[in-house]
């Protein structure tokens, strides 16, 4: 499922995917509010999110079944990016030996929100990634709805995780200030914000241009 060139007609499915992801996060937050365990929370969220994204991609974007062979590559890259995020978290000052599992869960979550959508759509080649992340001028260069969603949600979830670290040193003694809960919340909040931003942006572009219909 790598390297699918997307046409502007994919706007509708992309919007649906975004809305569904945001809904999923809200529902999740609602159901786990009373009985919160960060590890199970992250694990279940990752599974649900992956299932939604894969199903949506396969059903809505008609990804060719032949490309499923690239799945293994994608999974390896996903684990690899989790490791990268883990390393970055440790470099930022997360404990090296204690609470490894918590840190790794955050890393997996970041890999799922920031890297996995990109891996599924762009594949694993550097060129595609640098094109999307460093060459896109969001208001000038045209790119597909899906790519804009990936860009916005990816950047925003990393930013959210970064901002999530800010409340940790405060002396409020809240349970969510414990590492890495605030960062997990920040990641998901940032991810949702990115998706909402992308949705608005796509709708705005559509209204402006009205070149393509929604579905």
């Amino acid at each position, binding site marked *: 499922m790598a390297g699918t060139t997307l046409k502007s007609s994919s706007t509708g499915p992309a919007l649906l995917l975004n809305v569904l992801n945001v809904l999923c996060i809200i529902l999740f937050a609602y159901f786990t509010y009373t009985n919160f365990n960060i590890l199970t929370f992250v694990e279940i969220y990752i599974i649900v999110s992956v299932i939604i994204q894969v199903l949506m991609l396969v059903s809505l974007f008609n990804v060719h079944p032949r490309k499923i062979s690239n799945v293994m590559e994608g999974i390896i890259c996903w684990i690899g990016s989790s490791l990268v995020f883990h390393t970055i978290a440790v*470099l*930022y*000052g997360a404990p090296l030996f204690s609470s490894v599992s918590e840190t790794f869960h955050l890393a997996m979550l970041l890999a799922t929100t920031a890297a996995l959508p990109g891996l599924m759509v762009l594949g694993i080649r550097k*060129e595609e990634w640098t094109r999307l992340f*460093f*060459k896109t001028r969001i208001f000038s260069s045209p790119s597909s709805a899906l790519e804009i969603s990936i860009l916005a949600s990816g950047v925003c979830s990393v930013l959210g995780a970064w901002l999530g670290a800010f409340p940790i*040193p*405060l002396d409020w003694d809240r349970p969510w200030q414990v590492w890495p809960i605030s960062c997990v919340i920040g990641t998901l909040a940032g991810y949702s914000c990115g998706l909402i931003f992308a949705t608005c942006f796509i709708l705005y572009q559509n209204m402006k241009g009205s070149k393509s219909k929604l579905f």
Partner: protein
Amino acid sequence: MGLKARMWILFILISIIHAGGILIFIKGFLLKRSVVLKNNTCHVDFTMKVDNHEEEGCWMHRRFQKAIVIIIDALRFDFAYYNTSIIKGQELPFENKLKIIHEKLIHSPQKSRLYRFIADPPTTTLQRLKGLTTGSLPTFVDAGSNFASSEITEDNIIDQLRRQQKSIVQMGDDTWEGLFPNRFIRSYPFPSFNVKDLHTVDNGIIKNLIPELKKSGWDMLIAHFLGVDHCGHRFGPYHPVMGEKLTQMNDVLRSVIKTMDNDTVLFVLGDHGMTRTGDHGGDSKDEVDAALFVYSPSKLTETVAPKLEDSPSVSQIDLVPTMSLLLGVPVPFSNLGMIIPELFDHGPWAQAGTSEVKQVFHKIKALRLNAHQVKEYLHAYSLISEDFPKHQYKDLNTLFSLSENELQRLIMNIYHNGEHEDLLSRLEKLETNYKSYLTNVRGMCQGIWAKFDTTSMSLGLFLTCFSIGITVFQLFHTNSQERFEVAFWTSTAVSGWSSAFVAVLWFSLMEAKTAIMLGTMFFGFSIILIVGFIIYKLMMARGSEQSSTPSLSGYFSIHGICAILITFMYFCGFFSNSYVVFEDSMSSFLLQSLLWIQSTFIYAQQCGTEPSKQISEKKRAKFDIFRTLTNRKMKPLYLALTFNLCVRLSMNFRACREEQWTCETSSFLLPLSSFTDSIPLKNARYFFSVIAIILPSIGLRWFLKHYGNLNGKSLLVLSTKYCIPIGMLFIALYWALQALPPQVLDSLPVTRLFPRIVYVANLITIVAVFVNPLSIYILPKATMESHYEPTAKISNNIIPQMYNQMKDSLNELSENEHKTTNGAETSDDVELPVVYGLATVYSSAMIIFTAAVTEILYLLLGDGVAASLSLALCNIFIGLEMYTCWKCWMKDTSWDVPWSVIVLWGLMSSQYFFATGHQATVPTIKWEAAFTGFHGDFESHILPGLLIHLNTFASEVLVSLTLPLILCWPLFRTSRYSIRKGSSDNWNEGADKGELVLIENSVQFQLCVFKLGLGYVLFHAVKLLGSMLAAAVLRRHLMVWKIFAPRFIFQSVSFITIYVVVIMSVGLMQHVHSHLGGWLNRLEKTK
């Protein structure tokens, strides 16, 4: 007046405004108390005639004739308290060692008392001694002057005793001599400053104590032991040496108690406690909780002893009135303490012991005298100062006169009717009245002596803002000479006027009204000037159409905005106590984030500039992860990774603040001699540190050799070649000695010799840099023919030499070509001199200077945290490489250093302040740094002060020194880059000249260096403003003395340090510049 002179004028003017802002703010912020110079005498109008007992004491009949005061410095309450629940053999080194106190409490409960002796912070010995003798509350101002103890002028118990013809003997800590010169009939002072010395003071006292006790002719004997405190500073309370020390103290107490007679009282007290690391100065429970043990062989009190577990608390200033009245002398005039009532219910001379009413009455009599004395003091104080809030003062007076009337009535009652039933309860009520009066007075005084002078504070803040404004204004106008000239006059006029204002404020001792008047005048004047400037500029702009502001692009690009945001975040962090407490994490977090932003930016830049290739489907399939990872373009990411790794590693060297309750003390911060149980660990740490300091020096040598700066026999080259390695060697030897047990160490003279060798070696290097900063070498003409043969002079390392020779002759060639085009004689076969090291002539001088300073810093930081300084060096190197990378890929030849790089340097200096084992609190200052190379008996306090200062601000000094390297580094690094790549890439035309381009564009050089220094100072000034504003806004915050005030003081000292170091490094750059100019002139002449 040249460009250079103008810059210096601006630098100095801005520094004056900054310094003035800091000083004026401090004046309003750090609290002061007026001293009432009045003494109490025997005959005051509130004492009754019957109370005057002449020989037997005035004010009250004395209870004891003689007193022994044994001060065990830093005797924490739990050192003195005997915990019976601990099984024998399992106690910690400081527990259950003072057995004699326990024995006395058990066996003679009415002859002994143990109290928690609560100190008023700051818990430094000098402040405590003032409190313990005058009974007054300390203010923050005194805290800084721990080393320069001055004579006490307020009324105090020592003078009161002397006025009653009592003689005092003092032994131990020589601080007493400074506080009370010529007051003692005999004294045995011993130096107190040397905290490494655990035994001199104590053994000196022990030798003299018992003989002195057996002599007659003294009425009070003060013995001040320092061993426990020094042991805490050196080893901490958990070290076995502490156990030995306390056992020794126990023996002393036992022998003292044995020699006491019935008319003597013994006070054993600690002036403050210590934290778990053995430091003190702050106001944590461990530091404030000292112990007070009172004992007399005769009956002390009628009150039944409380349970051992809950010893009552008394304040340290309570000791003064208690001791005065027990000894029958007047209470010192400015005392605010309250007597310890239970020590006053036994009066054997008046047969008071029999009746309970008489006991209580006796107590009340003492309390009444105490209250009267406090009232007199308040009255006197209110006459000279309007500090007291009116109605609170009135309420207190009412309470006092109520109790007084009640007492009169009671006495009349007793006189007429004798004792009756409710007398006791009325007396007890009276007792509580007096007590509450005294407690309330103390509360009020504590409240008002925390009063701020808001006028000075806002003036200080305003001045700081103002100088930041001038700095920003000047920074925006330093991109070309014309703009600089124009802006210069405005800035100079404004800042000159304001520094004159500062001077007037400072020397006229500032009355509020005149200050405001002057302030308005000055403000109006500067507004007029700035408006005038703007009008002038507008007119100029109309005349010439060059209104472009190229310098702004460096500030308002993506990374520039991010850097501004990060600066702003740091600024905001000062307003939250949590962020100040965890500032160590905050600074590294922001530093790392900024670096990631930069490296992503660079990466994005070079991805954005390269043409996008259409990759065929076939090529796509071949995806090689290793090729991607080893791509040259990944360099910024790898640099960022290494940088972050260094920062992460440096986190292990952090010290713990007391508020960081999850923090564990790093083993790098323990002295090497405390690794008693694990020899391999000891060795590992030692060798780790040695390797960590040797690697940078190898790097230095390699660098200088590679760029040809290590040839010839000039003083600079020789000192670099030999002095620096010798210094390293002696640092390593000195650290090896640290592993020895301290007893052995103190007797070895080499412990002082080795560091001195290091100082001398590095000072030689520093002097050499100043004498002749050019580490270049002209190849003699004779050897010119034998270019590729090893000559006698350059016999070793032929290949690098040849490479350098070729490279440098290349440089020199282009240099000469340039000169010839400038109009000098043109001839093809003119002999070209071959010069080594011309491409790095500026940076080599900077680097050698930095290396020499770093070596001193290594020595001062000690073997534990020195490795962190190496990490800092590594980070600086990576930062420079990163910037070079940036320059190369953006094909940017301008010398303007972007704001984000300056912020990176600023954040690095902040982060390594914490990573070198410091925190912005008084207890984490490493006082022992003053003893590297010196014995500790200092004549003046300048040298130890400097050493401690350098230790504390090591990172600021190091990072600020390397600042000009940002300018130089890309010049010669990019030149290497383009030479290697050949002519394919000629974006950087002057690249092969290395740093020689700096001398060719002298004006541009001056402007850039100036701008760089000013920008860096600006970052720290913003930090200073943040901490100042936070201290001002949150001055009523609960934590202000614990968190915000120390942060502000540390920030202002570090700011001043940085300013001085920046001026030094900019000065050094200009020194090299002028030397190089002279050298080139001479070269031209000889041709």
